């Protein structure tokens, strides 16, 4: 006997993502899903962003890592509410994992929630968590072939932060090629060039955050 099912396998994830989204909207919180390869500088960008914004927006952070609490400790040191999730091997965060920790985030008292996804250029882009936008980081040392090799993440993101531009003199990375290829995959992508080491470009990024993150 054959039973017709015709169900999207990730339907459960989409349903919980929609629930999360409702909680965020009700609390007036703007949510950014931050994605990149391991070590591109997600936590560093959060540190610089939190310092630059200096309480003008109330920020909280969810840190997703396969193991360890180092990233949450770095954010906690800046006096920001932070929850560390350890996925225990899973290569991405999903809507359910986020749903389970939302009770620990003071949603009513914040404006902006960053979710630092697990370092990985492939899987995180496939699982919505209820975010308003996805933002990806690419560091200069990863090379200029990445947009065409990992198109999905560039297509799904609203903004691309090119980090570690202080290292440009030491690489043969062609930043114009990255911009060209990224734009052709996603014509509406916002692109920022920053260095979390020197602070260059961080201001343009935070100005943009201000312009989008005020929901109420």
């Amino acid at each position: 006997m054959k039973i017709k099912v015709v169900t999207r396998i990730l339907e459960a994830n989409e349903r919980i993502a929609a629930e999360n989204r409702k909680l965020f909207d009700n609390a007036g919180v703007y949510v950014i899903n931050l994605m990149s390869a391991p070590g591109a500088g997600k936590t560093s960008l959060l540190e610089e962003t939190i310092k630059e914004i200096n309480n003008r927006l109330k920020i909280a952070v969810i840190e997703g890592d396969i193991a360890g609490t180092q990233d949450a400790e770095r954010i906690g040191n800046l006096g920001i509410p932070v929850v560390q999730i350890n996925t225990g091997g899973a290569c991405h965060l999903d809507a359910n994992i986020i749903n389970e920790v939302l009770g620990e985030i003071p949603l009513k008292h914040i404006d902006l929630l960053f979710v630092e996804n697990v370092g990985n250029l492939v899987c995180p882009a496939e699982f919505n968590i209820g975010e308003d936008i996805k933002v990806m980081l690419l560091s200069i040392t990863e090379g200029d072939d990445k947009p065409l090799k990992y198109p999905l993440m560039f297509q799904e993101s609203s903004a691309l932060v090119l980090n570690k531009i202080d290292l440009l003199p030491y690489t043969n990375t062609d930043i114009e090629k990255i911009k060209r290829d990224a734009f052709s995959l996603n014509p509406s992508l916002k692109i920022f060039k920053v260095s979390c080491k020197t602070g260059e470009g961080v201001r343009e990024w935070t100005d943009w955050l201000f312009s989008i993150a005020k929901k109420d």
Partner: protein
Amino acid sequence: MHEVSIALNVLDIAIDNCRKSGYDRIESIRLKIGRAAGIMPDALVFAFDAVKTDTLAEKATIIIDHAPVGGSCNTCKKNFVSEETYVLCCPECGSNSFRINSGRELEIIDIEVV
């Protein structure tokens, strides 16, 4: 890369449908997987075989129907279909400014139960 979590979702949905229809064993599960879904079929079958033990789906096999990638080009304005996992440029004109409209499907089509 996340074939185990996909396999667990497949198992949950299949068992749920089997129970709801009043049957107690699943013989096969037919999936539709787009070429651009980011799923390796072999890895998914391997993961499924690992998670199905001691469930209604213990003896179930996975049947995969592949769906091609469909897109439309921003440059030559044509629609195209491709069996490639990664479409990096328009197969018609070579432009890399295009939209993918299908090919990321990840669905359970039907299950065979007894």
